[in-house]
């Protein structure tokens, strides 16, 4: 019964890359295998978007504000993904027993987190695009893109910083020793408020907006609004250039923090037996 197939093992960067692809696979494949997301992640956020659009219509707001809502609703998909599928994910993985297997494997946990993030980013982008396209068709939002490359750079940096934050939170959620469900709920609504998903963040005073900028979506959305609705540029919180610089700094900071908290989490979890939490 000796095994006929021999296996070799890669290490270093190749192992890291393989692990990223391996862990992103369930997220990518899940998009086509479990179609319930079409209802829960598209139809229901769409209804919420419609609600906010009609509030602005009732208040007789300028048409750009309808665009803010459509854009904000598309970006909501990323925030929900960060909370429920990134930040809470290591906790769920612990509950199912996967975390122990990840820790025990030779791959660095950072590769697993990168895999979750890239898979999540892919599937969420599909959701966000659907919401954006449907919203635009329904409410006829008109965009004037002033600089495609600036827009592209803003989006990329926002996503790197945001998913970096998600990776950091996933370790913190595990360390909090609270059920991840509650921690995600704690953050969901306040960030929807302070990051300005449905209105320009400049509506708050400077210090509140500055504090809210710790969540990369705040500056990301503010810059995107300035770049696609130039007529509302005056409502911008900071200049796009400055926002790009801050987003770049946030990207580095969050990725570094993710790396450090992950290492600390792993060390503490091994010390206190929190990876499996079961006594025997």
């Amino acid at each position, binding site marked *: 019964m000796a095994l006929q197939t021999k296996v070799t093992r890669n290490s270093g960067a190749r192992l890291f890359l393989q692990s990223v692809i391996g862990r992103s696979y369930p997220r990518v494949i899940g998009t086509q295998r479990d179609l319930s997301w079409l209802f829960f992640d598209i139809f229901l956020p769409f209804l919420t978007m419609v609600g906010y659009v009609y509030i602005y219509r009732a*208040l007789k707001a300028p048409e750009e*504000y309808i665009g803010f809502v459509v854009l904000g609703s598309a970006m909501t998909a990323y925030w929900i993904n960060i909370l429920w599928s990134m930040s809470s994910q290591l906790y769920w993985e612990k509950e199912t027993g996967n975390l122990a297997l990840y820790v025990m494997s030779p791959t660095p946990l950072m590769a697993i987190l990168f895999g979750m993030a890239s898979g999540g980013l892919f599937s969420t982008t599909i959701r966000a695009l659907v919401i954006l396209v449907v919203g635009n068709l329904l409410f006829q939002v008109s965009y004037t893109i002033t600089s495609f490359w600036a827009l592209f750079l803003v989006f990329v940096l926002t996503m790197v910083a945001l998913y970096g934050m998600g990776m950091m939170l996933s370790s913190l959620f595990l360390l909090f020793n609270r059920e991840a469900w509650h921690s995600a709920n704690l953050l969901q*609504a306040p960030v929807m408020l302070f990051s300005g998903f449905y209105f320009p963040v400049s509506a708050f005073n400077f210090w509140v907006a500055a504090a809210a900028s710790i969540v990369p979506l705040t500056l990301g959305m503010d810059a995107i609004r300035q770049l696609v609705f130039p007529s509302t540029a005056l409502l911008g919180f900071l200049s796009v250039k400055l926002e790009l610089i801050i987003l770049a700094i946030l990207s580095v900071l969050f990725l570094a923090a993710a790396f450090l908290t992950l290492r600390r989490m792993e060390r503490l979890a091994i010390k206190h037996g929190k990876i499996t939490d079961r006594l025997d």
Partner: protein
Amino acid sequence: MSSAETTPNSEAKPGKLLTFRTSAWLGWMIESNWTDPFIFAIYSIIRPISTAAILIVMYLVIRGGDFGSADFVNLYIGNAFFILVGAAIQGVSFGILDDREHYRTLKYIYIAPVRVPVYLFGRSVASILVACFSVLITLGFGIIFLKMPIALAEVKWGLFAAAFVLGMAVMICLGLMLGSWTLIIKNNAWSLGESLGAGLLIFSGAVFPLSVLPVPLQWVGSALPISYWLTLIRRALVPGIGRAYPMYTNLSDQQLILILLGFTLVYAALAALIYKRFDFIARERGNIDMVSNY
């Protein structure tokens, strides 16, 4: 064990009241988080206040303030009381999922000599009670920080009580309809009640009058009891301002109450029919003791 000893008639069925009381107590134990201030704060304070604050800022950026205006007060009250819609609708479906997937006790409830709808009704009452605190906190926030003109002396308490009870009854019927559907849904239905509740916001006239909507959507709103209920709540809480809200201005309070009563009866009958149908399908498919894999 003792129940068998104290109840000689082994076929005795617990009364509906007992079933209701027990399930309401059970729901309360599960839903209320008084012992954990952290969790209480999340669900009863932070979430509702944040949602209300989004509306406050939206109003602020367009209208530049004036929180005492009829437009804002009506919007704010509509939003605050809409929390109850989500809770009532969520209550039943969440109870079914929680019992089936988490505690895995739904099958035991089914084989016990109790009426399942009464049990589910009891469980949803707890989530409504918890939501009531969120409503109170949201209203309190508006009165204290936004100086909203809600004066207790001017409230029409009789109208408020009648509208509240009828509204909750009809909402629970709606919840039972959704819950019946939950009986046959496999995955991902945890947020169904809450999300569908959020979807109903559009058709409820809670945060904007139905007249803003395209005409076919206005018809949907008129076929749902929520818009009548919220209109009554506004007229009871802030009589002058509530009257100014551009919905059902040609209908008197009494007429609205009668409409709501009619809705309650129709929805109760519908809920009973729908429950019966889905309950049959669920048992036929073997869904009662199902545990979904995620």
